[in-house]
């Protein structure tokens, strides 16, 4: 059981400034005045021109509803100003133009940051998918990830980094897979028509997923999942 929630941020970075932006984000979390805040850097990625929209950066923070609420109170009420965050925000406008965030609710089996660290999960490349499913299907989809996809990932040497529902967006699911080397991602894609279990998985997806956005991602240079 994973008791956390996750803040997932897709940032429209200024082209060519992806790594400086991601490093500046991490730097904020070394700010002495902000130590003790509940959220932890779960993952940081940057886009590449292989699949999906680019350029962008992605931050994922592990938190709790109580911690997330406290962060938002600090942001939106005058009583608890987060001055370091305000100054950082206004100082880094040359690195990013805006973004789109989601709050993610993990499937029970989705690993925590501590789980990933304990298993030494690192990757050269990651596959993120945001999927739009029929109403009522997201929980079943996440069950199918565990039952159908994860055994294949284990067999091919890939890692499940996260499997989530999206708070307040009842049709959406977000998953992230990690490959220690590009060759393992290649094997997963190459096996999709040959492997019986993968064929079954893709048949389910083909008849269920109504819309999808995929991104192949590199780990941020200083991020937690970098090889």
């Amino acid at each position, binding site marked *: 059981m994973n008791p956390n929630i996750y803040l997932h941020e897709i940032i429209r970075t200024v082209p060519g400034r992806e790594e400086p932006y991601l490093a500046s984000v991490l730097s904020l979390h070394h700010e002495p005045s902000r130590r003790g805040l509940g959220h932890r850097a779960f993952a940081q990625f940057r886009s590449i021109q292989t699949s999906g929209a680019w350029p962008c950066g992605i931050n994922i923070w592990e938190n709790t*509803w109580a911690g997330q609420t406290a962060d938002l109170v600090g942001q939106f*009420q005058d009583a608890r*100003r987060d001055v370091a*965050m305000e100054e950082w925000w206004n100082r880094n406008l040359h690195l990013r133009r805006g*973004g789109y*965030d989601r709050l993610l609710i993990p499937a029970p089996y989705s690993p925590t940051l501590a789980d990933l660290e304990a298993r030494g999960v690192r990757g050269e490349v990651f596959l993120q998918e945001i999927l739009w499913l029929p109403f009522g299907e997201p929980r079943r989809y996440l069950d199918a990830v565990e039952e159908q996809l994860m055994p294949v990932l284990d067999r091919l040497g890939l890692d499940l980094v996260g499997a989530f529902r999206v708070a307040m967006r009842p049709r959406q699911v977000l998953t992230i897979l990690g490959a220690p080397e590009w060759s393992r991602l290649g094997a997963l894609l190459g096996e999709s028509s040959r492997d019986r279990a993968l064929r079954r998985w893709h048949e389910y997806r083909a008849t269920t997923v109504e819309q999808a956005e995929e991104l192949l991602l590199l780990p941020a240079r200083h991020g937690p999942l970098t090889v």
Partner: protein
Amino acid sequence: MPTMNDCVYIHERIPIEGGARGKMIEMLRSRWAPHVEHEYGVRLVGVWATVGSTGEWPEVRVQWEMDDWEHFARAQAGQYPMEARDVYLAEIWNQALEYRRGGHSMLLRPAAFSPDLAAIAVGDLAGEVVLHEDVRSLPGRMAEYHDALHTELLPLAEARGLRLLGAYEHALLPNTGMNLWALRGWDHWQALMEAEPDDAELQAWTDRQGEWLADIDGFLVVAPPAVALRT
């Protein structure tokens, strides 16, 4: 709650340039809204900062209320073209270019059970934190969705402390709508989120929405205290 709401609404989504979200909100509150109410009788329903952790950022949302389509036409004719008819509005519109370059507006008509601004004030329905829902219905099913929202969801929502600020359909685009729900505050939102995985009644409603809806996207917007936002 009124039995009929004939008002007309304009809801604006305004992407913000840089760190000017607070400044845009202050301008709308202190200069824009008093002017258009005084000159045209157009009432400010709310001006909100989108909570970036739940959606698009940086962004401001603003909503205006007019009595009916006749008032709508009179108010718009009075304002446009601004350069010719309202030099003050033209000036602050241009001043705001420092804060925003464009936006996207929706012309909305309310569901009959949707409260107008007067009912919101009388019922003390407004709140600091608001759940905004963008709604896309299946073709031709918006009216049935609103019926179900009124008779089935509203009692569930009110039992959980949510207050309906508005349920609307787009006046021009078919099968497009928007809901606004007021929360009691941040602690209320936290409690709702923590309870969500085990709330079987709401889960059943959520899953049933596929009878009427193609999609629904929720995110939070906040009416921050004056000068609280410096980003």
